[in-house]
């Protein structure tokens, strides 16, 4: 069975400091992995995706994620946070016909 665990429900950083949002997955086969961002009262926007090509994936707005099969992790990072990054972030795994969402991580960015 597939599962996605986002290890932090809330993360708070100061503007200009690095961001790390953690995601672990469990799957009996190699899934495709995604990070989505959701701003208040908006739909979800794709940040980046991993589909068994390069393990280091670059996305929009300066975000990156690294797929580590040995650790079953797909953590999202950004070198320097901006105020506009404050939002909810979802780690998502797909395989077969199933799409599994993590519970989400709320990112707060302090001035």
């Amino acid at each position: 069975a597939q599962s996605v665990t986002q290890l932090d429900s809330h993360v708070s950083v100061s503007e200009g400091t690095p961001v790390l949002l953690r995601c672990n997955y469990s799957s009996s086969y190699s899934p495709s992995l995604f990070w989505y961002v959701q701003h208040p009262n908006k739909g979800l926007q794709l940040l980046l995706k991993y589909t068994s090509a390069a393990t280091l994936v670059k996305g929009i707005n300066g975000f990156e994620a690294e797929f580590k099969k040995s650790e079953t992790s797909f953590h999202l990072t950004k070198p320097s946070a901006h105020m506009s990054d404050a939002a909810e972030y979802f780690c998502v795994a797909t395989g077969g016909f199933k799409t599994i969402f993590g519970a989400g991580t709320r990112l707060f960015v302090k001035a």
Partner: protein
Amino acid sequence: DAGVTQSPTHLIKTRGQQVTLRCSPKSGHDTVSWYQQALGQGPQFIFQYYEEEERQRGNFPDRFSGHQFPNYSSELNVNALLLGDSALYLCASSSQLGTGELFFGEGSRLTVL
């Protein structure tokens, strides 16, 4: 290229009423999935439609039903509304030939009084 469009954006209903939400997928997409997102929660999978048939279903009661039309657009119907059905309903489209990436609409905000 229009993305995923949903209508209406907001609506208010009373308990026991019925509601229909609509979704037009991104051009070139053939699969539509519906999600319910309660306030402060992550999206919960309701069901997925492909080739006009429900292919998968999440843990939602039969009050939730749907339809996909030949042009790939879709409807979500909810009967006998409960207060707990108040949520943001998200439609996502994808392609069977793609990598599983979902494109989301802005959602329909349903309030049940």
